[in-house]
């Protein structure tokens, strides 16, 4: 049996809602960045864009949405496929290990992004 102790909010509705709201934030962010790049951008204007407080907040919002979206999505995938049903008793070990690796990767990624945009 897979447990839900590592679910994002331990509540299906919250996870479901966060997944959808975060996808909209990410869509808006990548569309905005895509439009900027399509319009032609050089280093100076790219730097100026990311120096503005509004853009920093938008980027922070996007990375927050990314972390939440990735965690909920991967948690769902892991609890579907990396289970005792699929892997036998080793599933009890494999899933927590993979989850810890993913959490660490997401935290490191978030810290890295924050450092880049505020430095």
């Amino acid at each position, binding site marked *: *049996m*897979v447990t*839900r102790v590592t*679910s994002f909010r*331990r*509540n*299906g*509705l919250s*996870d*479901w*809602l966060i997944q959808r709201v975060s996808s909209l934030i990410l869509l808006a962010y990548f569309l905005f960045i895509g439009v900027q790049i399509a319009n032609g951008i050089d280093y100076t204007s790219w730097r100026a864009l990311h120096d503005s407080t509004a853009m920093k907040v938008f980027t922070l919002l996007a990375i927050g949405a990314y972390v939440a979206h990735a965690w909920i999505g991967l948690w*769902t995938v892991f*609890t*579907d*496929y990396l*289970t005792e*049903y*699929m892997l036998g008793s080793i599933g009890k070990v494999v899933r927590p290990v993979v989850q810890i690796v993913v959490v660490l990767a997401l935290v490191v990624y978030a810290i890295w992004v924050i450092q880049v945009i505020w430095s």
Partner: protein
Amino acid sequence: MLRVSVYRFNPETDANPQMQEYQVETGGRDLMVLDVLEMIKAEHDASVTYRRSCREGVCGSDGLNINGKNGLACITPLSDAVKNDKLVVRPLPGLPVVRDLVVDMSLFYAQYEKIEPYLQNSSPAPAIERLQTPEDRAKLDGLYECILCACCSTSCPSFWWNPDRFVGPAGLLQAYRFLADSRDQATDDRLAKLDDPFSVFRCHGIQNCVNVCPKGLNPTRAIGHIRTMLLKRAA
């Protein structure tokens, strides 16, 4: 002659399941898959084991995997099922096999029991019956017709992966049947019991359930209604 390949497994004597082939003379008739199984049992091999009862799509006993698609053997004609002059019959996927085409439905029934499939109403019972308006009664159409054959739940990957936690399409269709019932007073309690990451939200909208339901019902739509009710309840 129709080539029929049937899944055979007796846990008491066989180490592994195997497919056994039979040549069945259908006389060119468009028989139902159950008729072919009956012919095999009567004329070829009396040990072939399967469930059947009403033979007209009402009891839900003979849910089988027929040429890769779940369905009721008694109402699936050969013209719909046979591919390349071959009929392949397996038990419903994802459930433990008791013998040949008979599966252990305990997990399926445990999920059905979990949604408390009965009216809950604590107000004093009227002298005759609890009445509904025609409009309220109409809300149950497309829900009450389920015969619990398990074709939908056993075609659902989410149910294969988490049969102990995910209620499955059949159970959720019935959950919504009672949530939508104007005579039921346990709506909030029912929703509270479904508000975890597995019971409802493990549905990924794959819609295999809609594809295979022999009664033409739509569990995915019912699950969508439950999600909406959960959202309104939490808002």
